[in-house]
């Protein structure tokens, strides 16, 4: 009897303390209610998105506009359209809503014309002879005077082995052309691995600041971002970056950095932006989202290049002549000066 009492007291004590778990969780926020999900997403953006002022976005007005489209019992598809459309108002391709049936996006590459066709470069400049040094595709052009490097994506695979090979190969040319058109970005560390081969001294590239509070202007102090010269072989002659509206995120960061490096020149079209670091989060219904939570600032500490880093030389593609790449031609001309 005594033992039974002891067991009962002990079991009751454990159950009692375990029920205290409810104190920790207050309530479960999981919900498929359209209003709950809308309010959650709007609130998260309101307190954490970093470019309201630059893009002159009245987020309260947008709330009113899209809240009126909600109704109880709406389908997932309809709710996705409302929330996705609301996020598109941020005009930022680092802003997406992701469900298991759709992904919303803005499409900054459609703010300008299409300026790249790899087939034209392959057929008429490289003559279908390409060396693949992952993640680069490259070879000599212009009768061996120039090194052309196609860099399609920041995969995180740029390392000293592949860069040593490329720079050694083209060390006696007049210059390099790095083609980052339609490069949607990726691993940020590739930016600094590449740029470290183009400088001889520590160089200030840009500034960056991150959201530190819920106010639209609650940011950290601007953090100076430096590049340090690599200890391996470097290329200190002219380097031309070919860009277009599809040059986004890490590609835009590279272009922003190029403004601080006198031997780097941008030719082509304004980039697509994407200079805000995207976060990641989840809604009460389980869908995920991301949006920009930091700002990259130029050397004057201005955030304006989020709207696109402009080229030093503006050139557009002529789609009436599919044997020439006018942007690449202009870069060749620049290196032959």
């Amino acid at each position, binding site marked *: 009897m005594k033992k039974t009492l002891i067991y009962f*007291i002990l079991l009751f004590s454990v159950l009692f303390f375990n029920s205290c*778990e409810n104190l920790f969780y207050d309530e479960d926020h999981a919900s498929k209610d359209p209003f709950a999900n809308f309010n959650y997403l709007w609130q998260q953006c309101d307190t954490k998105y970093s470019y309201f002022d630059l893009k002159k976005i009245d987020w309260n007005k947008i709330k009113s506009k899209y809240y009126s489209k909600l109704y109880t019992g709406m389908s997932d598809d309809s709710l996705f359209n409302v929330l996705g459309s609301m996020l598109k108002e941020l005009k930022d391709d680092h802003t997406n809503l992701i469900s298991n049936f759709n992904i919303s996006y803005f499409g900054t590459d459609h703010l300008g014309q299409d300026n790249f066709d790899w087939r034209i470069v392959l057929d008429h400049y490289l003559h279908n002879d390409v060396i693949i040094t992952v993640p680069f595709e490259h070879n000599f052009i212009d009768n061996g005077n120039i090194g052309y490097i196609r860099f399609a994506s920041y995969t995180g695979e740029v390392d000293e082995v592949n860069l040593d090979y490329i720079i050694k190969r083209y060390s006696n040319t007049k210059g390099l052309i790095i083609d980052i058109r339609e490069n949607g970005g990726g691993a940020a560390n590739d930016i600094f691995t590449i740029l470290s081969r183009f400088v001889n001294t520590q160089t200030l590239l840009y500034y960056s600041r*991150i959201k530190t509070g819920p106010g639209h202007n609650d940011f950290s102090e601007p953090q100076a971002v430096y590049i340090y010269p690599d200890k391996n072989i470097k290329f200190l002659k002219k380097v031309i970056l070919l860009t277009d509206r599809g040059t986004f995120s890490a590609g835009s960061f590279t272009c922003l950095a190029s403004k601080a490096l006198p031997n780097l020149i941008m030719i082509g079209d304004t980039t697509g932006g994407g200079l805000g670091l*995207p976060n990641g989060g989840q809604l*009460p219904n*389980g869908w995920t989202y991301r949006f920009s939570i930091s700002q990259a600032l130029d050397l004057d500490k201005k955030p304006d290049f989020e709207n696109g880093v402009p080229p030093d030389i503006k050139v557009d593609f002529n789609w009436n002549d599919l044997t020439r790449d006018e942007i690449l031609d202009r870069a060749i001309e620049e290196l032959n000066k």
Partner: protein
Amino acid sequence: MLLFFALILLFDVGTYSQNYEIEKTQIRDSTSSIDKFPKKKYIGASFGLSLTNFRDLATSPLIYYGIAKHVSISRMKFGTKKECLFDFEYYAGSAVPAITGIDTRSYFSRLDIMHSQLFKINFLSGNKFKSGFGYKFDFTGMERENTSLLNNLFGFELIPTLAASYKITFDISRKEGKTINLLFFNRKLRPVKRNISLRIDVGVINSTYRNNYIYTSHSGVINDTNYFRDYKFSMFSGYRFGSGIDYTKYLNERNALVFSYLWDAFSTGGSEEKFINAMHIVRCTLLFNTNR
């Protein structure tokens, strides 16, 4: 922050070592003083399962539920006046939210380094039961990976806690053998030494080391390899509770088997960035006596 951790660890190791050194000296000097110091020393090896749930409001409003495998190794000293414990615990598993129609999973692992000392409370102890009061220092590190959360896929926090502990142990040994007469057969039960205990831990100093307001690491775009540059240490942040039941059965004069049900839950401070974790652990521990 590092100095704080170093001081705590030095205190723990120093106290533990001091106990051992004093014991060695005193046992040689006087048999009457043996009662003051640990008599039985054990190494414990545990394995079990943990029902885990957590919610990280910095990235998601959803509670994730899962099961983790659990192993631990411990060093214990039991005396008539004092009880000491040093424990390394490891958990690893995965968890999903309780909501349908989405495909998301968080993989997590957790390491706990614990040191505890309990001192006998004479006026709350008797022939068949013993109460002890003391402290428990629990250094918890937890990491999670959930690719659905994109740039916030990696979550990491350190939760060092200094807790006040209370434990009551009941002696439920069978002193004499007895025979149970069942319908078709008889079972003779031998004398067995066993006890059952309940332990409660209440966090007094609840510290956290966790990422800042925006949670996402900034280091990638500022050419900085220090991923934890924006992490913040808070000495007093949040709260933590724990409880547990242990049923110990001594197998012979030396070793023992312990079946345990443990519960541990903590919450960090803040509102938007609050992280909550609770674990229900069922485990079996083999205690190997190391007295010479």
